């Protein structure tokens, strides 16, 4: 990042460039409980460092670096995959330019980023050797149109390429012969999880009446898995490659309220919808059963939340409370009974989450943070040999946050 700042400075007219650091660090320690089993005492850390560079009245640059470590699982993670030793680490470097002419309502923001993700799920995996270690490039731009400051409409388009360097299909690795014939199927690919594609995002926020603010967003990620062929009804591969559309929509209404100078609140209600549409099918080889549109699902979420602010406006104690309800239905996947037999109805899951966070300022820019989260999930899927669909999970974390 220093290099980027230096380059910007060198290329600029003398004396015109200003830069401001932006930083934030949060470190929390705690424990996670899943179906009654307590995970090891661990912690999470998240750090963001950016240098906001003002080149001139129109152009600004924002190189940034984010690093995160997760040793204690959060209830917002995908918990059904729980393994006792799971740890996650992520590092991302990004560069964004912002063109904002004071006389124009438009802002244009090209950007580029690179992310390294590391995931250790079992005791024998090491950092850098995780099966789902991920590398991702994104290049894109965003345009913003200021409607009534600070409100705006934003549209963005990114191209991305994600790869899993440690994941190669077993079938492609094996040169197995069986009775003189290869055991691997034709058209089998190697890097079957590597994908590339585009992300389109639309968002706006606007005031509604005197006190309510509305935030809305729509994003869709199109992913093409170039090495993953579509499975057909006979459990063999077709020539087409897998392609997914993951679409998310959300609308949030936020309303502040003040009882007195020392007690304020910000209430919100968020409605969300998610749709995954894929041309890929599934094939349950254990039962010789073809599962058309195996990945497709629809999801609805409702999240009411309130943030209570107690004390002086510049350094209040804040209490965040939220309740989340999520229902997901898989259109092409039938639920199974405990033995694995398909019972006919589409598989669905329902999840409740309750989360609370207390932020207590100690000194300027430094706060103590306490978080308690609980999730409860249930499903009509009774076959849980590979993945847990019904569970109770709790995460408790305490630590600090520092912002610059």
């Amino acid at each position, binding site marked *: 990042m220093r290099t980027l700042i230096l380059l910007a400075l060198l290329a600029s007219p003398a004396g015109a460039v200003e830069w401001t650091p932006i930083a934030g660090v949060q470190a929390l320690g705690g424990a996670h409980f899943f179906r009654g089993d307590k995970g090891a005492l661990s912690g999470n850390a998240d750090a963001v460092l950016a240098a906001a560079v003002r080149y001139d009245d129109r152009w600004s640059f924002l190189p940034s670096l984010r690093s995160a470590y997760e040793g204690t699982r959060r209830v917002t993670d995908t918990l059904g995959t729980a393994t006792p030793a799971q740890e996650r680490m992520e590092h991302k470097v990004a560069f964004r330019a912002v063109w904002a002419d004071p006389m124009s309502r438009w802002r244009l923001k090209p950007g580029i980023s690179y992310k390294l993700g590391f995931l250790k799920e079992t005791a024998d995996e090491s950092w850098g050797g995780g099966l789902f270690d991920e590398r991702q490039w994104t290049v894109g731009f965003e345009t913003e149109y200021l409607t009534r400051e600070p409100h705006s409409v934003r549209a963005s388009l990114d191209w991305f390429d994600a790869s899993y360097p440690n994941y190669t299909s077993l079938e492609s690795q094996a040169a197995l012969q069986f009775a003189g014939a290869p055991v691997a199927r034709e058209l089998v690919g190697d890097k079957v999880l590597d994908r590339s594609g585009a992300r389109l995002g639309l968002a706006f926020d606007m005031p509604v009446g005197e006190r309510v603010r509305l935030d809305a967003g729509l994003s869709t990620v199109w992913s093409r898995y170039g090495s993953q062929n579509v499975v057909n009804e006979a459990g063999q591969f077709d020539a087409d490659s897998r392609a997914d559309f993951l679409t998310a929509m959300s609308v949030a209404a936020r309303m502040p309220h003040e009882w007195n100078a020392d007690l304020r609140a910000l209430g919100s209600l968020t409605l969300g919808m998610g749709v995954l549409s894929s041309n890929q099918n599934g*094939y349950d080889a254990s039962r010789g059963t073809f599962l058309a549109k195996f990945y497709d699902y629809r999801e609805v979420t409702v999240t009411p939340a309130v943030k209570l602010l107690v004390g002086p406006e510049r350094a209040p104690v804040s209490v965040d409370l939220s309740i989340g309800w999520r229902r997901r239905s898989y259109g092409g996947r039938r639920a199974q009974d405990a033995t694995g037999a398909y019972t006919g109805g589409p598989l669905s899951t329902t999840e409740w989450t309750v989360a609370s966070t207390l932020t207590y300022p100690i000194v300027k820019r430094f706060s103590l943070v306490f978080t308690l989260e609980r999730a409860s999930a249930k499903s009509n899927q009774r076959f849980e040999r590979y993945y847990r669909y019904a569970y109770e999970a709790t995460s408790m974390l305490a630590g600090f946050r520092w912002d610059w």
Partner: protein
Amino acid sequence: MAAVVLAVAGSARAAVLREATGLVQVRSAGGDSWRPAGKTPRPLGEGDGIRTGFNAKARVELSGGTVLVAEGNAHVSIEVDAPGHTNVHALFGTVRMIADAPRGRAVSVRTPTCVVRARGERVLVRVTVAGGGSTTVEVEEGVAGVEDNRGASVILRRDQRIEVDLAGVHEPTAAPTPVQARKTDFMALMRRELGFELGRDADYAAAARETRRAEREQGRLLTDADGRRVRVEEYVVRPAGNRLALVVMNGRPDGLSYYSWDGTFDVALPADLSGVFSSLRGGASASAWTVTDFTMTRADAVGSLAEKGSGGHQVDLNGNADPLDDVAGGGTAFRTVFDRYGLYADGVLKRGFTGVNLQAYSDAAASTTNDPLSGALLGAALPVVVTNTTFPDAASARQVRRESYGDGTTLTRETLSLEFGGGVGPRTGFGSPDRNAEDRTSFGGRTIRIVLPSDAIGVTRQVP
């Protein structure tokens, strides 16, 4: 009377819109519609409203020499504009007032949460009204009084600022210099951009999360008895119309291993194999598909253990002469019985049997000098085998079947029922649909380890 009317009319016309840059609209007192300001100068009266668009600006001269500047996205109205009293109502946005208030003339700006009054002959004050009516007042010159809706008041001097909301006035602070203000605005803009940058990650993270989740849901990622990762791929191969092969591959850091079951049937198989698979374990009636030949292989990169059978035909085990092979529950119980069977370690026959249209395996003749499938003469007679099955750990789901051969070799087959997150389950876990099974086959000084995610092993339980 006429003089009074003229005086009132004169005062009502004292305000003038002198300058309008960008989108500036005016709403006349009592009117409902906003209209473009038009040409300047334009007279304004009490009750008239002014609003500005993005980056627009409106400059209004009020009576007594007071000047009001409404910046972009602002909304104000003139409440009172009399020779001794001027009051402007600021509803939203930023206004700058240069108040000329000699000899106690009242000049004020009212917002939803406070009233700002000039306290001196010349006062420059900047008032910003945001959402919820919260107001920021900054004095650039002179002295101003700020009074909230509860009656509390504060005197502000040059370069001081104060925030006022529905809760009342806050503590005055030093107003930022223009450079500080610009830096603050810039930092707020960049923080916002940083938030957008980080926010986009959520979509990509969701896509990656779904990928990992689906791999799990399909049983492709399991944890073995030692808590180590085992990757699993399970699929079918269709070498011919009447054949199917179920392949289960395991991937570990130390290499691959696989299990396969290749069956040949008496008739062509349908595209949908669900009925075929469910019939393999047998049933109360004879299946429409009979396995005539099979080869089952457990292998790694070094060697293999293969079981082969031929001459398969369906037999009602509860209806044959051997009571020892009866299936619990009574009634008919059809299973496939093979006339010829051989067990091969690294291609070398270890044991086998033969028969003709066997109705029970108890009628089979153990192979001694000939290969049971090919009939070829063996180089040496097969050694005697003794089989011993034990549960070595009373608490855990671990079964060991040891075959000891007369030539001193052994073949050990160990079956373990696994916990979800790794490790061996309790003894009661055997047969639980919630658990995966690990199959360890040891011979010749090595072990082939295979975690079977499915009931694939059930297919093989047809031969003793």
